[in-house]
């Protein structure tokens, strides 16, 4: 009941809700947030409207959302005062409190230079990867609910082009990003996967194709990128589960190990 009250206050009727339910795990705040410094980080009981409003101002959230978040902050502080939601508060304001395995987001591919057809091409790559990533033949095979909705990813991308900041704001473990450039008669796309938590680059690769052949159909290059990037994430996640739970692997860990061995 408290969550629905928060949703009413924060969303203002917008869909999807900025508080997402993650089945079996809890809730996730799905709007860009800043990482507070140690001095500024509030504890659960001291979250107040000022903290929330300065956060929104810094990131330039969309029209109406500042007021909504002020209301939400007030509602949240009231709930916290009643008690019983300290853990939820921690998860809400600590982006890494509930990082899910294989959660990932696509940072829109950048374009080098002023080249409108290339910009449309980059948009097409981003769009294709964004649609494909949560699909059953990509990460959706393992975790269908762990790729943020497209509109949420776009909102976060409007605030930053830094993969680490972007991934932290969206509370995902991996960020797929890239740059597209023209090089004479060739189009190049450099794609990479970053671990949001550490900023570590775990994979990067350059893809080239003839400009004439590729500009009209960005899905072709996107689907060259897709399996390589997905495997990089699978392999990293499998290595992580070996490191963190070598003797206590659950079903998903074991599936990841199997996939990592057969790629």
């Amino acid at each position, binding site marked *: 009941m408290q969550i629905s009250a928060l949703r009413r206050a924060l969303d203002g009727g917008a869909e999807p809700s900025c508080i997402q339910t993650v089945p079996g795990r809890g809730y996730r705040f799905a709007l860009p947030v800043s990482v507070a410094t140690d001095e500024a980080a509030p504890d659960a009981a001291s979250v107040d409207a000022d903290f929330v409003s300065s956060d929104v101002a810094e990131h330039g959230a969309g029209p109406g959302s500042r007021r909504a978040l002020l209301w939400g902050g007030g509602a949240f502080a009231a709930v916290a005062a009643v008690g019983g939601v300290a853990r939820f508060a921690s998860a809400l304001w600590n982006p890494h409190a509930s990082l899910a395995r294989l959660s990932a987001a696509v940072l829109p591919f950048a374009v080098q230079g002023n080249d409108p057809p290339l910009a449309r091409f980059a948009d097409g790559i981003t769009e294709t990867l964004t649609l494909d990533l949560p699909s059953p033949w990509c990460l959706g*095979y393992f975790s269908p609910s762990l790729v943020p909705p497209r509109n949420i990813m776009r909102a976060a991308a409007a605030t930053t082009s830094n993969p680490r900041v972007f991934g932290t704001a969206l509370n995902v473990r991996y960020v797929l990003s890239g740059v597209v450039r023209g090089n004479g008669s060739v189009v190049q796309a450099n794609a990479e996967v970053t671990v949001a938590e550490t900023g570590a680059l775990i994979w990067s690769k350059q893809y080239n194709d003839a400009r004439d052949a590729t500009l009209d159909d960005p899905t072709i290059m996107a689907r060259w990128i897709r399996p390589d990037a997905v495997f990089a994430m699978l392999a990293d996640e499998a290595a992580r589960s070996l490191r963190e739970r070598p003797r206590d*692997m*659950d*079903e998903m860990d*074991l*599936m990841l*190990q*199997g*996939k990592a*061995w*057969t790629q």
Partner: protein
Amino acid sequence: MLNPERLEGARLFYERVLELNPRSADALGSLADTLLAQSYITGVPPPGGYRAAERLIERG
């Protein structure tokens, strides 16, 4: 690169998944894939024959 050792490693992991959850469609399908890939690479039919792999897919 796929090779018999990697496929064998994957097979063991999928079998462990099925010990935890015998109805895991992901593991059943992946195990069948792996058995068929092992057979393709080594030229030896999977244990229990191709019908065994087919049964895994049916269960999945």
